[in-house]
């Protein structure tokens, strides 16, 4: 049951327009979303994530490909026949109806009787903690409350899959953070498949079971948050998720478990290959090194793998960020926790050594 596939998307391609004017919105998207999974589509605006969500919801057509929902093709089903409900970005609560009527609307359209609708609506109001507000109009509720009503309305008909289109983007930071926990709690208590669209990587990392990173209409990588963060498949993913240093380099030599890379500027570093594919000798690569995977030491210490000149240090609260120039044009960003004693040992202009947690360095070619 745990591995049952909720939605199988196969080679979905979509163009807007026709002929030579057409623009590609989605290209050859294939992904399987598991039952009971919190699955996130993550990418910058215009990457096609919302288009893919709207295709699943039945609001957009597409040219090629197939979508299977729990074993049945839904390609030909109109939106109102799909057992899929959406939480819209702007909530789209019906302004002329009470909160109760909003939540009960889907059940009413399904032809459920009044007693059943009342019972289910009570249940949903309870779930989103808005029992007191059933008789109000949407305009009388705060943004966070409207958000919860939109969620309750989508959950009430007990759909197979819930689609969430950037539902937290209109909320302020504090509310957004508490709604993240709320969403996870509700999903876990109901056991439903959630497909969540966001451009906010922090949201994606903290909430998802798996994330699909998208760019320019293509899937870049699908994996768990840890996987995507630690093993980015390409330069786009490494750069988009979290912060990273991308340093140009050339592979000088490879052995079975390590590659010798020469960085721009002439310094060399040895990168283990235990968790990544072996590059070819002579390949031009980008070394992705996250700021938190480095430490600063004396330039002449044995543990210094790279040396450079400290240019700038910035206090960020929990962290201190250092910018270190290792070549004319290459600045490395290093981040250390503010609690470390060694923080104030260095001053701008100093020659410093950098110790790299080498197991986390990734060699990326595209």
């Amino acid at each position, binding site marked *: 049951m745990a591995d049952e596939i909720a939605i199988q998307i196969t080679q979905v391609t979509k163009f807007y327009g026709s002929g030579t004017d057409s623009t590609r919105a989605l290209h050859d998207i294939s992904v399987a979303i598991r039952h009971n999974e919190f699955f996130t589509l993550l990418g910058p605006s215009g990457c096609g994530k919302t288009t893919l969500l709207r295709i699943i*919801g*039945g*609001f957009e057509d597409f040219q090629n490909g197939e979508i299977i929902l729990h074993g049945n093709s839904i390609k030909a089903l*109109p*939106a*109102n*026949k799909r057992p*899929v*409900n*959406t939480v*819209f970005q*702007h909530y*789209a*609560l*019906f*302004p*002329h109806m009470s909160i109760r009527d909003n939540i009960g*609307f*889907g059940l009413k*359209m*399904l032809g459920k009787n009044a007693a059943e609708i009342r019972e289910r609506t009570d249940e949903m109001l309870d779930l989103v903690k808005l029992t007191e507000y059933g008789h109000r*109009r949407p*305009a009388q509720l705060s943004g966070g409350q409207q958000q919860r009503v939109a969620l309750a*309305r*989508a959950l009430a*008909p007990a759909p197979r899959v819930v689609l969430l289109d950037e539902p937290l983007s209109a909320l302020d930071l504090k509310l957004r953070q508490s709604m993240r926990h709320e969403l996870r709690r509700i999903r876990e208590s109901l056991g439903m498949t959630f497909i969540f669209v966001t451009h906010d990587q922090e949201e994606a990392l903290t909430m998802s079971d798996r994330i699909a990173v998208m760019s320019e209409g293509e899937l870049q990588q699908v994996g768990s948050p840890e996987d995507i963060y630690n093993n980015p498949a390409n330069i786009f993913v490494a750069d988009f998720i979290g912060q990273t240093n991308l340093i140009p380099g050339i592979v000088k030599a490879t052995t079975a478990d390590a590659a010798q890379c020469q960085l721009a500027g002439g310094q060399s570093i040895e990168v283990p290959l235990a968790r990544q594919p072996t590059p070819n000798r002579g390949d031009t690569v980008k070394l992705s090194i996250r700021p938190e995977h480095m430490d600063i030491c004396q330039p002449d210490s044995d543990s210094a793998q790279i040396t450079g000149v400290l240019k700038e240090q910035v206090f960020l609260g929990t962290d201190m960020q250092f910018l270190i120039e290792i070549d004319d044009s290459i600045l490395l960003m290093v981040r250390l926790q503010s609690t470390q004693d060694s923080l104030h040992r260095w001053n701008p202009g100093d020659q410093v050594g950098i110790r790299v947690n080498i197991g986390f360095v990734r060699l990326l070619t595209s």
Partner: protein
Amino acid sequence: MTGKSQDIRHYSGFLPISLICLVLLYGPLIIVMIYSFNDSPSITVWGGFSLRWYDEVFHGLEAPKFKKAAFNSFTIAIMAASTSTVIAVCTALAMLRCGNFRGKAVTFGLVSLPLMVPEIVTAVATLIFFSTIGFKAGYATILVAHIAFCIPFAYLPIAARLQGIESFYEEAAVDLYASRLQAFFQILMPLMLPGIISGFLLAFVISLDDFIITNFVKGAGVETLPTAIFGAVKQGIKPNIMAISTLLLMLSVIFVTLSYLAGKMGSRDKG
């Protein structure tokens, strides 16, 4: 909202120009209203306050003629406004909710053209059309003509309202298993209602007030209030005409105000 320097009242000549415009527009109306309460049978000499001309309108010699005309006017206005409102709603849905189609710009032009064409041209054209197809002039021709020229007046407030309603409401309804028809009647129409009411009332007043087209297409013997008034005036202006005009004016003011309030009502509880 705007700074003092932006205030239009600071432009020299604002006050006299405004006063001239207001006096020219509303002076005659106010005089008609005042003299409708004149006790004297002369239309220019004031002879004290009286309601006799109102009594004359309802019980005088010409009362049956005016009652018949009023009945025609009201029944035509109600039917013309209802029909043109339905057509305007359908047109607005097609123009604003059905994507782009061939001839969309032309359609918009055709819908709003009657607002710009001189009414006399429409009147003559309508008359020629009816006589060409052999449609006997009378009550029915007035009704058909009124339905046609009321459409743009009903369309404008309805389309303005629909334009302000985001399409995600219908999407949400369809997402929640509503058919397109259910989505329209349960979600979109209630949201459009202020615009629909406003459009209906506007069309009603336009139909009630129309003279030129009506005068061309009405047959002999069928009168609406404006044509009956015109007919009576040709035999000399009597104060009872002023009483009728005042009543008609009050009615128009009430309907236009209602139309405005209906439009307002929507913008408040939106979103």
